[in-house]
């Protein structure tokens, strides 16, 4: 399998093509089988590859495989070729694994929808594009996957295209992503200009020759890395380009789970980890990355606290968690970032799937205030979501705990980190625990508020989905618990993941003399974080189980603050007003109606009408009187006479 691992990429493409072209004629079963089996097969190949991969000696764990030359122009070459190394191995496992589970989940979840074939072909295409993204061995091919997943995201967000909001959200997602992509592509240009290659290994080798040590000041590497990071902020929904992700929840819930939580949105983190040899040489950019990451984490967590839509809460939570990942890579802890990426994939996917079955059970009700008391009806969902919430909140021994602690510790201890990062990180951990438990409490505990809204349309009580849909829950829940053990902190054991990923971060600069700064040990800091987390949980319990009135009083008391958070700091409105409306208005009123129609075309038509005017003037000269004509002739003769008379002297 190791030789031909690339077939795993193509199989979903095949599924996409067949379903996409002929799907309309197929029965739902055929579509579902075809789609799931292709991704399943991919996952199987992936597992086999992984099995063979880990048996290789560590220094052989970089396998590149070229299929054909994609673009070649002069010295610019971009092969259609793939690179399997520990980093991409982890990513592809997550992508195909979670992808497969979500395919299976979708079979049932989407059963009632029109355009079943459309959904599954898009999903297959997504798996293909995501595989290309993570397995590409050069920046340009990564960009293919990068934009490709953006496309799939667009298509899937707009899946319910008859809804205007879905169309808007899809478009917004694509365009905001494209803004980031411009940064990315300019970064690629710069990479090529600097290194004359786009292939990762060549670029890294060159960069380690050119810059053996981290550069001081903001040089070309700073520019490259910053541009790439702009791309990452788009795809991974960071400030300032995060605005598309909450809206992206218009898509079907499994899509949110797969694309907007587990895989695609983490592409930015992956890209930065992939480019670690560049980033580690540009400390200024890394600081920006970390700062943007932690600010995003905080902002999104704050917003998440007040959201009423279950999926929006999860969306902001995703943004916040992505912020953590950027914090990790920003302080140079690339494997910590990837670690969190992986655990997050499991528990966030699980949370979304759980919310999906809640939504389904309540007939597409997403308002948290119209839920409650569901634990009786949705047992499996209830337990698995509890697990996932514990994981995301960072309760010890759940996967999220290990990955988050790793990040917080690195944020504090790394040469690039500092106490402030750690402090905000811990604060966000508390907020996370709060809003996640708020969600759990509002959904599963308390009074059943859904009947009021649905008593006519839902004669019978909410029900769990069938067994097929439960399988992914179980599996994801299992991993949400255990995935953390691959990366135990030092005080508990060894970080296997870090060791496994190490070959991917080979071309790092020589680390400056390792000086541990700070005065606290990892375990102490972890303890503080755990306390903060529990405080968050307790606060949620207090507010949403014990005494619901407090929330309202608080909201009334701090209404300004509450409004600010509830309206998401007015960022969307600001963007809309500053960019969308003004540009549209400018284009219509000034560029089109004034400049194009009046000025430029006016000049053209003006010339024409000027000619007509002259023509009429000349026509008038043709008065029809023979005597006037004779005057013309005489005048001409006199002019000629004058000319000769004057020139002859």
């Amino acid at each position, binding site marked *: 399998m190791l030789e031909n691992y690339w077939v795993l990429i193509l199989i979903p493409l095949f599924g996409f093509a067949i379903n996409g072209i002929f799907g309309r004629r197929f029965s739902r079963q055929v579509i579902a089988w075809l789609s799931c089996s292709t991704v399943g097969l991919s996952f199987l190949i992936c597992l086999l590859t992984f099995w063979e991969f880990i048996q290789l000696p560590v220094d052989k764990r970089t396998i590149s495989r070229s299929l054909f030359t994609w673009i070649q122009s002069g010295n610019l070459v971009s092969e259609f070729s793939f690179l399997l190394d520990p980093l991409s191995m982890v990513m592809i496992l997550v992508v195909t694994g979670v992808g497969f589970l979500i395919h299976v989940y979708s079979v049932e979840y989407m059963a009632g929808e029109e355009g079943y074939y459309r959904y599954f072909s898009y999903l297959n295409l997504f798996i293909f594009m995501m595989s290309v993204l993570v397995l590409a061995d050069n920046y340009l091919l990564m960009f293919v996957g990068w934009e490709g997943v953006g496309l799939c995201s667009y298509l899937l967000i707009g899946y319910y295209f008859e809804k205007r909001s879905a169309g808007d959200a899809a478009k917004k997602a694509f365009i905001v992503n494209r803004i980031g992509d411009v940064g990315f592509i300019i970064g690629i240009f710069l990479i090529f200009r600097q290194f004359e290659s786009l292939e990762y290994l060549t670029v890294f080798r060159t960069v380690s020759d050119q810059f053996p040590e981290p550069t001081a000041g903001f040089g070309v590497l700073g520019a490259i890395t910053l541009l790439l990071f702009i791309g990452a902020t788009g795809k991974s929904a960071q400030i300032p380009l995060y605005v598309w992700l909450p809206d992206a929840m218009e898509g079907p819930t499994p899509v949110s789970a797969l694309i907007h939580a587990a895989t695609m949105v983490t592409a930015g983190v992956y890209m930065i980890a992939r480019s670690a040899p560049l980033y580690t040489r540009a400390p200024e950019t890394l600081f920006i990355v970390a700062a943007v990451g932690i600010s995003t984490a905080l902002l999104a967590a704050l917003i998440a606290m007040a959201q009423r839509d279950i999926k929006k809460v999860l969306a902001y939570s995703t943004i916040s968690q992505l912020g953590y990942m950027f914090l990790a890579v920003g302080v140079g802890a690339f494997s910590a970032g990837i670690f969190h990426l992986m655990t997050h994939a499991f528990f966030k996917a699980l949370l979304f799937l759980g919310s999906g079955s809640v939504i389904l059970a309540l007939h597409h009700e997403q308002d948290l205030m119209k839920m409650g008391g569901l634990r009786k009806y949705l047992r499996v969902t209830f337990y698995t979501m509890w697990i996932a919430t514990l994981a995301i909140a960072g309760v010890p021994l759940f996967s999220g705990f290990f990955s988050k602690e790793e990040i917080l510790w690195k944020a504090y201890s790394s040469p690039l980190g500092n106490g402030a990062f750690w402090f905000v990180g811990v604060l966000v951990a508390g907020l996370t625990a709060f809003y996640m438990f708020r969600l759990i409490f509002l959904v599963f505990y308390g009074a059943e508020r859904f009947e009021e809204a649905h008593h006519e349309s839902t004669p019978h009580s909410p029900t769990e989905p069938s067994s097929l849909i439960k399988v992914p829950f179980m599996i994801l829940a299992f991993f949400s618990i255990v995935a953390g053990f691959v990366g135990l902190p030092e005080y508990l054991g060894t970080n296997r993941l870090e060791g496994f990923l190490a070959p991917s971060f080979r071309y790092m600069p020589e680390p400056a003399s390792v000086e541990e700064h700070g005065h606290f040990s990892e375990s102490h800091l972890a303890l503080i974080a755990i306390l903060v987390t529990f405080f968050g949980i307790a606060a949620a319990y207090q507010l949403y189980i014990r005494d619901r009135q407090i929330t309202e009083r608080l909201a009334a008391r701090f209404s300004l603050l509450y409004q600010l958070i509830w309206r998401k700091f007015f960022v969307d409105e600001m963007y809309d007003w500053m960019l969308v409306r003004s540009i549209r208005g400018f284009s219509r009123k000034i560029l089109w109606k004034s400049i194009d129609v009046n000025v430029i075309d006016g000049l053209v038509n003006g010339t*024409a009408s000027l000619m007509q005017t002259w*023509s009429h003037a000349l026509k008038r000269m043709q008065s029809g009187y023979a005597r006037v004509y004779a005057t013309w*002739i005489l005048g001409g003769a006199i002019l000629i006479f004058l000319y000769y008379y004057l020139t002859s002297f």
Partner: protein
Amino acid sequence: MDINYTAVLPEIILSLFGILIMILIPFTPKARQSALGFVALFGMVLALICVTAQCGATGLVFFGMIFQDYFGQFCKILFLFASAAIVLVSINYLEREKLPYGEFFSLLLFATVGMLLMATSADLIMTFLGLEVLSISTYVLAGFKEGEMKSTESALKYFLLGAFSSGFLLYGIAFVYGAAGSTKYLKIAQVIEASENYPLTLFLGLGLMVVGFGFKASLAPFHVWTPDVYEGAPVPITAHLAVGSKAAAFVALVRVLYQVLPELSQHWQAILWVSAVLTMAIGNIAALAQTNIKRMLAYSSIAHAGYLLVGLTAHNRLGTQSILFYLVAYALMTLGAFAVVQVIGREGEKYIGIDDYSDLGYRYPFLSIALSVFLISLAGIPATGGFMGKLFLFAAAMQSEMYWLVVIAVIASAIGIYYYLRVIVFMYMGESKDEGTPIIVPTPVRIVIAIMVVGTFYLGIFPGTFLHLASKAVSF
């Protein structure tokens, strides 16, 4: 320097046929009068044969009054050909408009004689006589529809202004005579070449002659009569004025300027340069606003005189050559266009507004396609003779390094495209209109139009043949 009648045989034949037709008029039954047209045609064919037979002969004949050379022969063939086409077009026209045949054809023959004389004359007297023979015949022809005010007005204006400008020409000739002591082309040229500085009278003579010829060739500012006269005259005569009379004037001008006064070239180039610019500008711009197709074509013919003038101003071999080539192309497309206009005009020339051409495209495909071809050629779009002609004219000017003149010419022809296209717009893209009387296309006209279409394309695609002939003709 003997009389050598054979050299002037074509002129003699034409004159005799003209007289013959006059004699025949009373003896021909009313219904058969159209046969006179074929008599005229026969005369022209005979003359054409004579000219062809003489091709290659060179020298001065008829007491040194007439040149025998390629240039003259080329022009003669062109004129005879154009006149023959007009005869063919006229036969049915005269029948339709109920006009007398005999007088028309004999006058046309006399006019042709005048044109031939202008093309070959070697003496200013002969040139003047040729011009007058041509003019007096066409004055009458222009007013041939005596029942119509427009025709009369046209003739009267043409006559008054023609005579007026003849006066200038004649005065010019007188001054040249006074300055050079002779009216013979070669003699004058010799005198000028020998003299060191030129008397003012010579320049005055040159200038006044330009006025005279410029009037006939409708060069600005002596073009003013053109639209009115063209509009009023019967269509075949308009065609004759636009093609024959203008070509003859140009040919005579070429001879006078290139053969008699080449030494003064820098003195006349300046005038012609200005006149060319004015002519092209006025012709093209004024045509934009026209609604009558005859009048529009009149302005168009002014514009084309401007292009010809560009070649004339260049004063080089290529220029002469391209003038000849362009005259051929211009004759083809203009005659063709007027032939179509004549047919579409129907009885009494009622349908000569451009909007009368609405939607003709699909009802009369032959006429419309033909007219489109002529208009496209007039506009100077490639693959037609009009383009090639313009190309050569502009090339000639470029060779004489008159870049700005070429640029102006180019801009002028860009403006010109609009009014030619407008007719096509009406024909193919306009709203359908009241159909009016059905159009009948008589066979002779059909033949003429077909020949013109083929010729226009031939010149555009294989310009080599005529260019070759023209290049031979340049060697005076």
